[in-house]
């Protein structure tokens, strides 16, 4: 089963990379952008076949390694 995770910076954390991307987009003519925030995307292929158990495991992975909860939020996307 494949489970996806999206990690984003929390609202109050400065994202200089997102800012530079925003400025570059602006310079390219995409001048109606309000803000860009950069994050991370993971695809985890697990042997677990039970949907609920798999999600619980991935949540544990997020808390212990994939995200740093001081600055980041994680979102687990339901497996298809």
């Amino acid at each position, binding site marked *: 089963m494949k489970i996806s995770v999206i990690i984003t910076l929390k609202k109050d*954390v*400065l994202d*200089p990379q997102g800012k530079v991307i925003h400025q570059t987009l602006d310079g390219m003519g995409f001048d109606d952008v309000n803000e860009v925030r950069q994050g991370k995307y993971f695809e985890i292929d697990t042997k677990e076949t039970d949907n609920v158990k798999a999600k619980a495991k991935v949540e544990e992975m997020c808390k212990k*390694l994939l995200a740093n909860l*001081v*600055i980041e939020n994680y979102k687990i996307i339901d497996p298809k």
Partner: protein
Amino acid sequence: MKSSVITFPGSNCDRDMDVALKKFGFKNKMVWHTDAELPKSDLVVLPGGFSYGDYLRCGSMASKSKIMQSVINFANAGGMVMGICNGFQILVETGLVPGVLLRNKYLEFICKNVFIKINDKKNKYFKNIENEILELHIAHNEGNYFCTNDQLKEIEDNNQIAINYCDENGKIEDQFNPNGSIKNIAGIFNKEKNVLGMMPHPERMIHTSLSGEDGSLFFKNLINNLK
């Protein structure tokens, strides 16, 4: 005095640290990250570098390596643990010191000498050090210290800020902040002050031919404090 320097895949200041510690009288041992047990030590150092290629977040992989459980136990029992640069990043990822280190504010890798002011001397790292201000070297991409408002309050209430970026006269201002760190923080302690994480590299300033000797002041003082 016995010290141990932990080498992770991608550490590159481990041997510099070994040279520095030995120069000032430590009997140092190099410890590989897959080892489970620490040799008997009065000081454990997590050196600078790019452990695990800085993958995911700087220091995140190294913080989960086998030896780190022993380092965490050692620190929790009151042992002296110092993390320099990537070592500081590893320490924040273990949670031994609060906060995180973000990408530098202006997205540049910074490699230069800076001045730091010692904020707290009631600890074994800086007690009795003659100088308030030291000139040390920094070289990092992710040294922008950040923590939540609650954490900052706790850090300040417990006097856990170890050193701040400043000018040569000790003025702590925005313009002397190289990387955007909150309150110009260059290094912090845990609550008990046996764990120190800092971005500057004292091991790079131990000889006149290495652009300065303020690192020598730090190490000489440190070994005297541990005796």
